[in-house]
């Protein structure tokens, strides 16, 4: 049995310790907002927070999450109103949308550390997340917008 906290809920799972956290979240717990894209930490679609730090859940064994707090897109805000989520809607970032949970989780970790990022900060923090539709310019704009919203306390 491995115990961890997912979106502030305690969870116990009986699986091989090496099982990627991704599959625990998606298929065992039904938190399907976190996506499978490559399985080898190359695309970022599976990004979640582990004790507040962004990790690629496809390459994180569940044992590494034991006793820790996992936050997924479903737990990013209680009512889906995180500044990034609002900015994403305002700027209409998503296209196919498949990568966007991972994009938002990477961006959220960036804003935690760097509340007023410049483009270089954004490029560095976000280049592990592939968007095949090519929404990068809008992602960049939306991160700036979310930073503004947070600063304004909105």
């Amino acid at each position: 049995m491995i115990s961890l906290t997912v979106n502030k809920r305690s969870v116990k799972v009986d699986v091989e310790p090496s099982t990627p956290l991704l599959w625990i979240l998606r298929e065992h717990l039904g938190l399907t907002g976190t996506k499978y894209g490559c399985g080898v930490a190359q695309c970022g679609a599976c990004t979640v927070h582990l004790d507040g730090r962004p990790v690629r859940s496809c390459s994180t064994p569940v044992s590494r999450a034991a006793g820790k707090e996992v936050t997924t897109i479903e737990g990013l805000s209680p009512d889906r109103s995180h500044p990034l989520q609002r900015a994403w809607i305002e700027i209409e970032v998503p296209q196919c949308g498949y990568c966007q949970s991972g994009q938002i989780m990477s961006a959220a970790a960036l804003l935690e550390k760097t509340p007023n990022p410049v483009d270089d900060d954004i490029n560095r923090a976000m280049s592990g997340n592939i968007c095949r539709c090519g929404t990068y310019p809008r992602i960049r704009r939306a991160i700036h917008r979310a930073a503004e919203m947070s600063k304004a306390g909105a």
Partner: protein
Amino acid sequence: MTEFPIKRRDFLVGVGVSGLGLVFGLDLKPAIGASPEIDKAATGAGVKMAWVRIAPDGAITIMAPAAEMGQGTMTALAVIFAEELDADWNNVAIEFSPSDDKIYGNPLSFFFGMMVTAASTAVMAYYKNMRLYGAQARRVLLDAAATHLNVPVAELTTEPSMVVHTKSGQRLSFGEIAGFAPMPETLPNVSEKDLKDPGQFRLIGHEVPRVDVPAKTNGSAQYSIDVRLPDMVYATVVRAPVLGATLVSVNDSEVSKMRDVLKVMQLPPDRVAVAAQTYEAALAAERALKISWSKIDQSEFDSERAMEQQSAIARDLSKAGVQVQNTGNAVAALSGAAKVYKAEYRTEFVYHAQLEPLNSVSWVKDGGKSVEVWAGSQTPTHLKRSVAEALGIDPENVMLHRTYLGGGFGRRSAMDHDWAVDSALVSKELGQPVKVIWSRESDVRFGRFKPMTAQYLQAAEDSNGRLIAWHHRLVADEALAMTDPLRFEKGKGFPRISTTGIKTDYDVPNILVEAVRNKLGVRMSAVRGVGSTVNQFAAESFVDEIAMARGDDPVEMRLELLQKSSAEQEVLRAVASMAAWKKGEKAGRGVSFVTNAGTYMATIARVTVDHNTGVIRVPEIWIAADVGVPIMPRNLDAQLQSAVIHSLSNLLKERITFKNGAVQQSNFYDYQVLRMSEAPEVHTHIVPSTRNPVGIGDLGGIGVGPAVANAFFSATGRRLRQSPFLPERVLAVLKT
């Protein structure tokens, strides 16, 4: 400009979400008979037509015939319908339509009545019909209101979701009318004269938000990979790496003993499936498979060698191709010309790399007689036919739940739906619901690629320096032959995908554009931009080569060649003005002008080249487009930006290569795509137009390749004639 509030509630997309994240579908039955039709049984319970339901509470549900894979047509088509219905957009919800060609088939002739979402055609194809159906639904409401109020229908008008009798001041909401509407025996006739004057549009051309966006910011948007059913198990499927090779042996008894593995199944002739209690167990088992496949002629296929062969065919003018465009006598004009230009261009295989790996969920029921399938397909009726064929049942007994597509780009359009048939076959075998997810490695290795091309171009000038001949020879395999044999056959074998966008609009008296099909025996597909991307890379690079050789400004030379079309000239002028293009500039910037199916685009790219590493960077791209009447301007901007970036990724980084008949790449570490740090700033401009709308989502990037190639020449004085522009290729050309 009207701004609409963002709606908080999630939009239904034909799947409902309940309890523990379990998803059950609702495949609406199409209305009876020809479209649009009324369900008479439902009188009093709201208006129900093939394209719309209006409930007594005022909720208006519009059917989306097209797949939603990021291009936004799920919203755009409903906007067009709602415009003519005169619906209040705040009352509108959108649902994926049932999968039925008779009602929802793509009206463009070359889709032969089938439901196909591809090649930037959805808005163009459905525009007129969606307007007429919307107007017809409005007329049903007006007639019912006229009877109810006992006034002539001609005295009634509409406001958003409201019928108004101005004389008496009486008002009836659409919902109220839906509550009592007696259904007419036959639907009222409407024609184009019943449509709104475009000047009256409240929705078309205004900023209506895409309905799929909110759910895509919080993880609730449902893709087929997210579907979970009671007692569902998982499977992965491995295919013969060489197309046509067959299964010889597999270590199935060994692998089936692994933890949580249920069964290793041989699916002749060329597949092995592993079913397991969990996906991680299925994946682990996939990796433990030792399979031997038959050796066939195709096992010798080598893409590098094939490129040399294609190149030889392209240059061998004795092998005539299928004529795509032929005016005057280009061959004769070339042979007697004062000056002839020649160049060859090459492009390699490209992979879709849609971020949601191929997957599907199937639940075979009634002892194999029926099946429910959850999948995101660009051709949903093909899916039903193919799954039915694989199970030996009638397509009527395939109930398809359409979901969002985590990227399509053509990969989810092929008729055979190999990725959906997989789950159906495994579910039939196990008698349980099964989710099949291809690993990324399978998605790459068993991908279907944009065919490689070799293209040989010639152009001739007369003694006055006038361009008098244009000859473009394309050598490529034809993706449609594999991706949709039905359409290929109905189209009499015309190479429709490879020749897309190859015609020239330039005013040259003698033109020959021809295509030679060279069968390669590999998996192929339409890929975003289809043939246009590679054909225009060649054609518009070549135009630039001519301009540079003549010492002409590339914008001015094109303007001159487009003298017969002011609309086409307009996009060039627009982009030149946006980018502050200077005549004769040598600032590392290049231009292109492209057309495809009525879409005109001009693109300017700025590049910088690192002479030590060979890395090309593209900090800025300007693009002006004329797409007819814009439906959703903000989405148009988004589609242009994204198509530009997708195309740039193809151009700079991407290629699939084959050795011994098999794909050599396997995941994003050896098939790299463009990332945030490499993404240019993209400036877009939509040239105002009153033409009927044409397409953009697929096509927006087709001018990028030549614009970047021409910018590279401007920066370095060297030509890149083979994509992708890999650093080693750049270094090699810089040394020449």
